[in-house]
């Protein structure tokens, strides 16, 4: 174990654990937010793990999750639009906190990686992670007008 993996363990236990609890219980508006946050928390955890294991190639995992996580949330935002329109989620504080955490992790990992091609990839991951998280949250709280079909 090193500092990176300890941080990853803490993120997983506290963050993803809470998200798993949130997605399993409560009203729908809470569940969709928890699903979104689960990917935006797992992604920094994967970055930390890549650094902790000293395997730069593991960054691909974080890249894919940062890319596809929000897509998954968009699926729910799109296909549950009618249910969500009646009871839209309001968890912007939490969303920004998680986005901030993601940003901190990305910066920390970037600093550790130093300049080079790896840095570009990390920055792309960071941009996708934060942008995706915020956009997905936006989509959840009324991103789709909720037409009957389409």
């Amino acid at each position: 174990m090193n500092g990176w993996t300890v941080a990853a363990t803490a993120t997983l236990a506290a963050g993803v654990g809470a998200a798993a609890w949130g997605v399993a219980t409560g009203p729908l508006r809470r569940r969709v937010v928890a699903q979104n946050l689960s990917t935006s928390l797992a992604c920094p955890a994967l970055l930390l793990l890549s650094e902790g294991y000293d395997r730069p190639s593991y960054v691909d995992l974080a890249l894919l999750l940062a890319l596809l996580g929000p897509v998954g949330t968009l699926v729910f935002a799109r296909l549950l639009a009618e249910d969500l329109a009646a009871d839209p989620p309001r968890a912007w504080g939490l969303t920004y906190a998680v986005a901030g955490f993601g940003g901190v992790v990305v910066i920390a990992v970037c600093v550790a990686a130093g300049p080079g091609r790896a840095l570009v990839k990390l920055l792309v991951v960071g941009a996708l992670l934060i942008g995706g998280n915020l956009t997905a949250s936006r989509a959840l709280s009324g991103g789709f007008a909720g037409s009957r079909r389409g």
Partner: protein
Amino acid sequence: MDDPLIVVALVLVAVSATAAVAVRDPARQALVLAVLGTVLAVLFTVLQAPDVALSQLAVGSALTPLLIMLSVRKVRRPQRKKEADR
């Protein structure tokens, strides 16, 4: 095995799998399955299987939820229509 990381990942998998079964509404189950997919991917990373983790991410985070949600939508629609006709 003294790696708490593995234990945490395993516990998360066990918890989300249980939740995926316990949540009975298919749309909500799809949400839990999406989380289960992510958690499984984390577990696979921890078990040093990045290839499997990648395919689990690819399948579990967007593809399976999309398939299930499209099915839910199709199954619900006739019921909706009936309600609207009433």
